[in-house]
């Protein structure tokens, strides 16, 4: 059973551009919608309005046939009655309560036996059974994260909201938890909305993505669509100069991983632990273009493609190629001139294996 979420949130701040976030999304169980954008884009405003923590200045929020907020009718359903789970950026665990009491906190309406069973079940799912007697202050970053998720999930929310879920963790831990969190969100069967400004996080967690910039939603779609074909220059600027290709892991050798992107094959440094579907990320400035295939080179990836589009960007030219998938290269104007790049011309694209980054797919 998918849920339909209709959002139109308006907020004005003195001395700053106002924010108007509009979304109309149908979310399947386990589907993750990412609100992606730079700070100040309106992500947090949207999330807090969805949770019922802030009252927008105008608009309406509907969850299936329930009205959570309607400015005109003066409706504002308090957070207590929205039955959502919210994971705060800094987790906001209750410091004076044990892990067990934190997880059981939202279960006041259940009978004691049922509550105990629910805590045990949730703790097992998030692997915090051994931490139940501890206080949050004594836990590691990763443990705190799992406890906060357990606390949010125990009351079985209808919608899970996550605010920059991995930003509080240090880098190595973030790497290892990213894939884990993505898998968990899909397995839970609860639709989720993740707010993030981190591209890798968006790729790893999201199945759909809404790009926010300047207080408005600029593009909504499947993650690879939005990253692969930004709707306009502003979205392109927000999502970055990176090629994001949906790939399938085909094999491994000598610490390298071979992936299939459409009909082409790419070699990348193996990040380890990934199977099946993934994303390959290549920065446009890392793609080297050359005439017909020449002699030996150290670059592991040679792709043949046809130029489809050339866009001048100051001293650089953004070259879009069709290599069986869409690949964008950023080269100098003189380089483009020397190669005689025009739409329709066939070229070879070279990418070193370390320039291809494999990330988990949400």
């Amino acid at each position, binding site marked *: 059973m998918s849920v339909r979420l209709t959002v139109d949130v308006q907020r004005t701040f003195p001395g700053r551009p106002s924010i108007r976030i509009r979304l109309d999304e149908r979310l399947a169980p386990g589907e993750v919608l990412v609100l992606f954008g730079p700070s100040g884009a309106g992500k947090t405003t949207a999330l807090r309005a969805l949770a019922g923590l802030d009252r927008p200045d105008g608009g309406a929020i509907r969850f299936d046939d329930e009205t959570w907020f309607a400015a005109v009718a003066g409706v504002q359903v*308090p957070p*207590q009655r929205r039955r959502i789970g*919210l994971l*705060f950026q800094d987790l*906001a665990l*209750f*410091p*004076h309560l044990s892990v067990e009491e934190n997880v059981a906190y939202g279960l006041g309406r259940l009978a004691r036996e049922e509550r105990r069973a629910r805590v045990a079940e949730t703790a097992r799912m998030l692997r915090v059974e051994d931490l139940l007697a501890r*206080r949050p202050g004594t836990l590691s970053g990763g443990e705190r994260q799992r406890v906060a998720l357990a*606390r949010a999930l125990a009351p079985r929310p209808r919608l899970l909201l996550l605010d920059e879920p991995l930003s509080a963790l240090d880098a190595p831990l973030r790497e290892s938890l990213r894939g884990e969190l993505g898998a968990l969100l899909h397995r839970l069967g609860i639709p989720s909305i993740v707010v993030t400004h981190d591209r890798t996080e968006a790729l790893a967690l999201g199945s759909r993505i809404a790009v926010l910039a300047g207080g408005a939603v600029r593009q909504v779609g499947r993650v690879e669509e939005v990253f692969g074909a930004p709707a306009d220059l502003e979205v392109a600027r927000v999502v970055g100069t990176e090629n994001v290709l949906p790939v399938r892991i085909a094999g491994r050798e000598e610490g390298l991983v071979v992936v299939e992107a459409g009909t082409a094959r790419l070699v990348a440094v193996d990040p380890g632990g990934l199977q099946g579907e993934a994303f390959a990320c290549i920065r446009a400035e890392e793609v080297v273009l050359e005439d017909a295939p020449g002699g030996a080179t150290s670059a592991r990836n040679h792709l043949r493609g046809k130029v489809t589009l050339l866009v001048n960007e100051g001293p650089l030219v953004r070259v879009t190629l069709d290599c069986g998938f869409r690949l964008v290269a950023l080269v100098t104007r003189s380089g483009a001139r020397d190669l005689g790049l025009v739409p329709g011309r066939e070229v070879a694209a070279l990418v070193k294996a370390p320039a291809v980054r494999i990330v988990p797919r949400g």
Partner: protein
Amino acid sequence: MMDLQALRLSFTLAALTTVVLLVVGLPIASWLATSRWRWKPVVEAVVALPLVLPPTVLGFYLLVAMGPRSPVGQAWIAAFGRPLAFSFEGLLVASILYSLPFAVQPFTASLSSVDRRLVEASHTLGVSRLGTFLRVSLPLALPGIVAGAVLTFAHALGEFGVVLMVGGNIAGETRTLSIAIFDSVEQLDYATAGRTALFLLAVSFLVLVVTYTLRRRPVPG
């Protein structure tokens, strides 16, 4: 010999003042800590007024308000058959008002220091405002609340000016320890005044030591 009757009266007055201010002051403090109402500074100023007002000014207005010719005074006489002014009950009302900032300000400070996101987390987990106050805000603000209550008690114990204005000096009804000291000095009984004064000094010092110890205690967790 110290005036034991005055001692008992002072302690009763201070204890009742503290209890009432816990019941009345915590909701006010909770509102002050969270409200974004534009007229909040006015409410804050009213609460803080007894800090800067001369006790005689507050006492004077209270005396007029409680007097047999005022509506409050008349209603009191109609209900209980005796005047409110120069009675223990009148003294208690005065003491509560005079000690209000000593309770509300530390309560507000400690409730404000509770992380707002913990309160919001509790709301999203389905727990009501009152439930959140009792399960999250109150336990986390407890050291500050205890400190505020102790300060209130100490302040009410030694109050002089307002008591004199509203209560006068009736043994067993309105004569508190500080009035007893004044009395003793007037009768040139410096020995008794000295003993009572030393006693109040010791109690006040002890109370402050307790208060600062509580303030230093870190939040559990």
